[in-house]
């Protein structure tokens, strides 16, 4: 044990006028960490699922995302291809390894598709998400062996696939899903990285004028799969 550590903890306890917590006091706090209670959750997500999907779309647009809707995963390649054309972007994309099994690119032969992590030269990436938070139009993405975080930041354009059943109301519901999913998988609550992303990268550092594409993607496009 480092002496700096002991001194800092000692100084805190001296200021608070007590010893280290023990017994029932400590048990109460351990319980809070083991089963975190929810605080106040704003009413705005208190809707049925269709209502939450509608709110999610509105909030995405408010955060400067673009949205297109398809009725199944098989239509995602075409929707991507159309979006790239509309935005006048090169017909090249890098996909998360996690998508390789789900997407069939044979109907879009002119689209050049790579799979893996980004080395910084890719213009457009396509990734899945873990959850979509309707409350604020926020996308929750996690890292793992088939989900490299670099795809969320390095390309100029980031396209995400949101399946309708991934949309939840408040942020707390997304945490609940993450805890459940990871408890089943690995036992640890958190992967190395969880990104909450609300719109494309921006800065206000030049005279407080908002400018897109500061370091991360300039464009964030959501393909909503209603299946």
């Amino acid at each position: 044990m480092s002496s700096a550590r002991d001194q800092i903890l000692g100084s805190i306890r001296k200021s608070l006028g007590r010893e280290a917590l023990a017994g029932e006091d400590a048990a109460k706090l351990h319980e809070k960490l083991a089963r975190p209670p929810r605080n106040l959750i704003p009413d705005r997500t208190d809707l049925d699922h269709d209502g939450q999907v509608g709110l999610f779309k509105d909030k995405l647009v408010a955060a400067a995302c673009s949205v297109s809707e398809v009725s199944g995963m098989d239509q995602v390649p075409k929707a991507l291809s159309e979006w790239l054309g509309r935005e006048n972007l090169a017909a090249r994309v890098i996909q998360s390894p996690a998508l390789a099994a789900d997407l069939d690119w044979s109907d879009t032969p002119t689209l050049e598709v790579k799979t893996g992590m980004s080395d910084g030269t890719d213009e457009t990436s396509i990734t899945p998400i873990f959850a979509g938070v309707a409350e604020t139009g926020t996308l929750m993405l996690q890292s793992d062996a088939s989900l490299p975080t670099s795809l969320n930041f390095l390309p100029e354009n980031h396209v995400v696939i949101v399946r309708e059943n991934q949309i939840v109301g408040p942020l707390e519901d997304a945490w609940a899903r993450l805890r459940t999913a990871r408890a089943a998988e690995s036992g640890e609550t958190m992967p190395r990285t969880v990104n909450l992303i609300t719109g494309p990268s921006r800065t206000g550092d030049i005279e407080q004028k908002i400018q897109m594409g500061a370091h991360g993607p300039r464009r964030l496009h959501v393909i909503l799969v209603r299946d």
Partner: protein
Amino acid sequence: MDSTSKNFKANSRRALDDSTLQRALGNIKTGFQEKRRQVTSELPEFEALRDQGRDIKNHVLANLDFYLERFEEKVVENGGVVHWCRTPEEARKTILDIAKTRNAQTVTKGKSMVAEEIGLNDYLEENGIEPVETDLGEYIIQLRHEPPSHIIAPAIHVTREQIAEDFRKHHTDLDPERRLETPQDFTDEARAKLRDRYFAADVGVTGANFLIAETGSTVIVTNEGNGDMTQLLGKCHVVIASLEKIVPTLEDASTILRLLARSATGQEMSVYTTFSTGPRRAKDLDGPEEFHVVLLDNGRSAMLGTEFQDMLRCIRCAACMNHCPVYAAVGGHAYGWVYPGPMGAVLTPSLIGVEEAGHLPNASTFCGRCESVCPMRIPLPKMMRHYRTREFERDLGSPRVKSALKLWAGLATRPKLYRFATGIVMRVLGALGGKAGKFKSLPLAGGWTKVRDMPAPQGKTFHQLYAEKKRVA
């Protein structure tokens, strides 16, 4: 960072006479204030969330030792290291040692006010390591060799003409005739310049908006994504954070996130909120190989249990300075250290001493706007008053102010004498004011009359007028 807080008065005078600075500060009202007002009006629960935010942080402060120990356990469980540092010296040395172990040539940095507090950049440079700021605002002021003047908009004092000059001077490989006018011109140029630096960096240093005891995660909130590039592309992620950044659970962080961006930039959520937990996992394709958390005390543990404990609830949103008439007039550099505005006027004397920073709590009109917008309901004016009292008791104020205050107290506590004396003064001043009804200059109030006229009294005191009205009625 060395402080010039002692020179607050001279610093302010210079700032008021600086027309470029005054133009830059003019953006605050339309920018931050209007956006905050709009976004908070769209969330009916905002006031109730402020109460909860305050309660969460009060709970944390009352159990700070417990939550810090749980946080450390979780960081270690996930393969990271926690370094406890009492002083800025210890924190600087810890980070340098980590960088040396990795033979680092450059260190990229996400924006961190605690890194400013410990003077990290200068120290790394002195030891042969190049720090590279990646937040656009921080990058600009690094080129200018200036400290930040605002805690979330570090280059708010710089105009685009000045930035164009800096970019042309430093980016000498680019066409000197290129256009540098629109915000996009600057953003694109900085984006391209910094891309290579991320990949070349051995170590990435970021700050933290939250530390989460439940999971051992550190959280950073940015709009640019620079903090993410910094930790993703560096081989080693070092987080520098002060003790009070801790919250118990993901739920608690979620509650405070609802307050943070709304209060700061008037957004519902900032673009990137990233939770980092340990180094990359065995099979991950990217992410840092090492994860270190440098926990800084620097006087905070001693603030617990004092009348300044509430200050440790601060989440660094900058709403107080965005709404402060004094900040809007003089900008952040006048405050002379890392933290400006109302939160700086309380935190600075707490961290570096009232001898050094006693002027700052006096830089307030006591209008109360800072407290009214503070998402954590920190009673900033009350704490500034505590510092004024301390300054007075410890005989640190100017002798002239002290004797004037004593004279005032003598008058104000003797009603008959007060009415008699003020009656005379009003009559004299009323007569002297003459037809113009105002003074262009007054002895002892030169600072006030320099920029405006003083209306002359109408010859009677309030008490006299009140008595007359009562008689008529």
